[in-house]
């Protein structure tokens, strides 16, 4: 799966920023939209779901999990975690064959 594309989308959107409550809405939207458009450009016969979680780093614990009911032979997913000093970001991509 395209992990490079996810990393790149995160870096270009929030790579140099600190957590800001009034901007995080825009950031998470931009990240998922950029990831999705990069994935669509690959031109493969897949439906995609991209999710993004951004959390402020203040010592809170965060756990995410996902469970999928699909065709193991053709469908797949990948998740990456990115963080800097003030926030952490988890992006998951699910690809389902058409």
């Amino acid at each position, binding site marked *: 799966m395209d992990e490079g594309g996810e990393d790149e989308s995160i870096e270009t959107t929030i790579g140099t920023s600190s*957590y800001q*409550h009034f901007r*995080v*809405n825009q*950031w*998470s*939207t931009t*990240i*998922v*939209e950029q*990831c*999705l458009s990069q*994935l*669509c450009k690959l031109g493969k016969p897949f*439906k*995609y*779901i*991209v*999710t*993004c*979680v*951004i*959390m*402020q*780093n*203040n*010592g*809170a*614990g*965060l*756990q*995410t*999990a*996902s*469970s*999928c*009911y*699909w*065709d193991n032979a053709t*469908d797949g*997913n990948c998740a990456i975690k990115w963080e800097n000093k003030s926030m952490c970001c988890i992006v*998951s991509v*699910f690809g*389902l064959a*058409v």
Partner: protein
Amino acid sequence: MEEYHNESSFNTEEVDNIVKECIENVVGKDDYNPNLVNKWTSAIVERCLKQLVKLGKHYKFIVTCALMQKTGAGLHTANSCYWDTAADGSSTVRWESRTMYCVVSVFAVAIA
């Protein structure tokens, strides 16, 4: 998001009720515990998935769950989907207790 009331379409109300019940059953009475949170998120997604599959509809399902301790930190989630808007659908449930937040998203992708 549009509401479908057709038997074979994605019914968000039904799914929301299923998800809320699963969350309540797994973490309804507990305080945030870092030793158990791993088990809880797995239990929530697996339980939701089992209940959704029991509905017997022609969908592939993806269930995601995020559990966060309440310490005042900000949390934001976003989803974007490239699919058939007529046949596929999603639903997100936000739940909280005194010590934690839980956000569960269900995505249903129609099988041709």
